[in-house]
């Protein structure tokens, strides 16, 4: 048996019918073809499936799709809307913070959520914010550098625009 579900993802509203045991991750990937959200450990330990729910990063493998009703979901696809990379994405590319790339969407969304709350984080704050996102290539140094560089760029762009 399927249940009706109205899901808001990246500003679009989708009317779906889903089985109750499907996770938000499965519905994003399999029903909506939003395959930027990666499927990792399925236990909430690795962070590859990170999405934002009302701006807060969560592991989408642990949320039932039906539980996401009424919330605004943001996936990695939204960050480069219009074909332009987000400063975080650009910094990851430029600083070699992407190796195999599997953790990258989750890393970037966790970093994005951090910078929304705290536009000029310290290195320690970046590390704490990314605790739940594992990089099995172990490229953490570059990742942290990239987040700090993007923060600086975004903050100075923000000052310039005022």
């Amino acid at each position: 048996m399927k249940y009706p579900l109205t899901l808001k993802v990246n500003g679009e509203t989708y009317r779906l019918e889903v089985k109750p045991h499907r996770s938000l991750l499965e519905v994003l990937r399999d029903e909506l073809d939003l395959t930027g959200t990666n499927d990792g450990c399925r236990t909430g330990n690795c962070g590859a499936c990170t999405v934002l729910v009302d701006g807060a990063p969560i592991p989408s493998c642990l949320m039932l799709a039906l539980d996401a009703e009424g919330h605004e979901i943001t996936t990695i696809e939204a960050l480069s809307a219009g074909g332009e990379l987000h400063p975080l994405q650009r910094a990851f590319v430029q600083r070699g913070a992407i190796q195999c790339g599997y953790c990258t969407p989750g890393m970037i969304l966790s970093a994005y959520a951090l910078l929304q709350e705290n536009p000029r984080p310290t290195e320690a704050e970046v590390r704490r914010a990314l605790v739940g996102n594992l990089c099995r290539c172990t490229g953490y140094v570059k990742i942290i550098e990239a987040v700090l560089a993007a923060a600086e760029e975004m903050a100075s762009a923000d000052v310039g625009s005022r």
Partner: protein
Amino acid sequence: MRFFEYYAPKTLDEAIQLLVRHGEGAYPLAGGTDLVTKARYGHLRPRVIVNLKRIPGLNDIAPEEDGGLRLGALVTLAEIARSLLMGERYPLLAQTARKMGSVLIRNLATVGGNLCNAAPSADMAPPLIALGAEAVIVGPRGERRVRLEKFFHGPGQTELRHGELLTAIRLPPPRPRTRGVYLKHIYRQAMDIAIVGVAVLLQFDEQEAIAEDARIVLGAVAPTPLRVPEAESVLIGAPLTEDRRLEAARRAARAARPIDDTYSSAWYRREMVGVLTRRALEHLVSHSPER
């Protein structure tokens, strides 16, 4: 995961009726970090899931008339960590929440879920017990309150009978000149289950020289969180000298009833109860940075 029926009731009464009607195979859903994982890997086989998140009032942090606080069972660990009210009145809880899981997990996991899963290692239990918290339980026969100390019956076992829900935690008004700390021993920097957890709460006299009251509660070293009155009594009414602090730490270690498992040997757990209790007391007495 296997198929289950799903309900998202809008009232507490409706949720309780659903749980009663569907019997033992029906599970309430809060943050889902435990339930969804256990259902996916077959450790639980829910036939019915009753999502509690559409019920208003379960996720409030509300001051009460007596100066205490009502902490809704569905308040997330992230909300506890960043709540100004928590930080001001019960900094011990905000500090504990920040030591749990990751940002991602804290955004989902709830205080009620942490308690109702009743893992012996549940981090929220020792500090809440130290603070004198009460569990507010609502079931088919109405509301009852139980001291959180009595809420845990064993690993995965609580005071809740089928059809009953933990709806809130009641905290008594914060007491003056009280400082607390929760120390958690894990092998990594974060994202790990406590090998040992120790909550210590001291209420000082006006000169801040003598403790008028002391609470020591251990986690992960017994089937349930363990309060250690015989260690507390050493600390009350006399200067908190190093000798007394060491004696309290020894008594806490002796009281622990740890087991061997994949995370740690029982021997090591007992040793670490002593070490963490000593460190917690040093920290509270000297204001030294937490180690």
